[in-house]
């Protein structure tokens, strides 16, 4: 529903007077933005595709063209784009060209790194190249006005930074995929540290929303991964040293949480609790040994394995506890969308837990009826109970 339609409804309902209605319409007409999001997005998408085309052309590796010509054309293009960005700077509020040229320049910088690697046959890692690119374009990214440009820069920075940090303790990470958990643990912790850092700086605040988006994605992936592999008794063959970057990030994050001025003591406790449990989840051999499994109705033997000692019981309990702590924090801080997402995930995990425990039963008619009822029941409980739960979390501090 458009805002004008809504305005007309309010007028008909008597909520606003005709004079107010006219004033609002006049104000909106005067302050209407000259550019729209779609135009920006498509122009930037076009620039991004052109950049990818340049990268592809370089990747085609023209053997017949002398390297001096390749590099010369590349630097000439870079200079032309830089001049274009500077020329469009005064018109940045009224047009899209400043942003398009800016994205084009940043992409060409990335393509240039690829070209240099090709000309000199450099055997470096892709994540070091991304980190180098992010470093040299950092100042430029501060001039970006569009969310997409900042999001693009943040995305590549995070890829470069996370993989480079993990490679410090495990140089050939691409050949040691058993070290993947250390990447998945480091990602949300490092992004959260960067998120807190940007909230303290006015200059960097433009990156906050992109970092928060990636934090949520990375955290959900980290939790889901730990849950799946721990429940399955995997992740038993890895070294504590691989997790050192993640532990350093965890310490920085804990300091960031403790020093956060807007958090009350309850929020700090909830976040530190969730952080501690996530570290426990990933830490080798503290809570999980990969051997103890307890299948409620399955055929696996579980003699000698206590209910609370079993990996496939501890994993979902940890997941649910971490989600619950974070949901309390989100509800208590007034982050409604995050609260809704996390409580939805809690419900989803309960449903998965049911299928894990009674997977065989779900194949029968009665089992399917119970499963369907459970899904409806949990959805209904979530829908009816989330507002009350949110109110309760808000009152917790008092």
């Amino acid at each position, binding site marked *: 529903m458009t805002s004008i339609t809504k305005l007309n409804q309010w007028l008909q309902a008597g909520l606003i007077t005709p004079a107010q209605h006219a004033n609002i319409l006049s104000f909106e007409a005067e302050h209407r933005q000259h550019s729209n999001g779609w135009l920006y997005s498509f122009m930037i998408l076009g620039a991004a595709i052109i950049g990818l085309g340049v990268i592809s052309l370089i990747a085609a590796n023209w053997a017949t063209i002398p390297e001096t010509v390749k590099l010369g054309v590349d630097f000439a293009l870079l200079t032309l784009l830089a001049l274009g960005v500077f020329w469009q700077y005064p018109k940045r509020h009224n047009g899209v060209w400043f942003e398009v040229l800016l994205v084009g320049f940043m992409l060409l910088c990335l393509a240039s790194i690829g070209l240099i690697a090709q000309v000199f046959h450099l055997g470096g890692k892709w994540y070091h190249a991304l980190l*180098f690119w992010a470093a040299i374009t950092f100042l430029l990214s501060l001039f970006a006005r569009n969310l997409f440009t900042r999001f693009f820069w943040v995305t590549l920075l995070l890829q470069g930074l996370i993989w480079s940090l993990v490679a410090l303790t495990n140089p050939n990470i691409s050949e040691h995929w058993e070290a993947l958990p250390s990447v998945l643990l480091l990602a949300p912790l490092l992004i959260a540290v960067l998120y807190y850092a940007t909230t303290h700086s006015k200059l960097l605040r433009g990156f906050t929303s992109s970092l928060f988006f990636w934090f949520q994605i990375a955290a959900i992936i980290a939790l889901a991964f730990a849950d799946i592999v721990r429940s399955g008794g995997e992740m038993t063959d890895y070294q504590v040293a691989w997790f050192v970057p993640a532990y350093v990030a965890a310490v920085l994050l804990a300091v960031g949480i403790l020093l956060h001025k807007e958090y009350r003591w309850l929020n700090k406790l909830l976040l530190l609790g969730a952080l501690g449990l996530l570290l426990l989840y990933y830490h080798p051999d503290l809570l999980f040994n990969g051997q103890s499994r307890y299948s409620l109705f399955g055929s696996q033997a579980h003699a000698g394995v206590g209910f609370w000692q079993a990996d496939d019981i501890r994993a979902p309990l940890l997941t649910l506890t971490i989600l619950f702590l974070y949901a309390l924090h989100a509800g208590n801080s007034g982050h409604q969308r995050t609260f809704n997402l996390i409580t939805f995930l809690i419900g989803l995990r309960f449903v998965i837990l049911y299928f894990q425990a009674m997977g065989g039963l779900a194949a029968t008619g009665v089992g399917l009826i119970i499963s369907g009822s459970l899904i409806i029941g949990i959805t209904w409980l979530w829908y009816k109970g989330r507002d009350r739960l949110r109110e309760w979390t808000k009152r917790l501090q008092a």
Partner: protein
Amino acid sequence: MNRRSWLIIALVVPILALASSVYLKNAQRNRGTEVILPISGFDPRDLLSGHYLIYRVDYGVAEGCGAQQGQASVCLRPTRGLYPAGALPEDCTLFIHGQCDGGVFSAGIERFYIPEAYAYALEQQVRDHKGELVLGVDSQGNAAIRDLLLDGKPWKNVVGGMD
């Protein structure tokens, strides 16, 4: 400083950084001592990856990394040998720094970019142990690739004969 000045700096920094990178790599490649080392495909299935060749450089060292991990150096003159970081013999006049991982020594020269059209033919030659790498090695132990030789000839000459 106003925002326009900052924008100029923001635009010049990447161009300067990339130009410096080109200058340094070029200097490293051209100024060092020339060394020719044979290469071979270490795993035929993974030899060709996209538009570059991956190979194993034969440093002429009898014993490889073994269980050794981390920073290491290969001495090329006067006597060839592989040593842990900081343990190079004092009389070693030409060496390459790199690192040991999984029993293999690597020095960042294990990749050679090639045109896609000649990829298969070049892969075969390297697999048949006909490849050699021409390197420039500086006094700091950094190695840079100058050329790829096939049967003793620059690869571009060989490729010219394939057309």
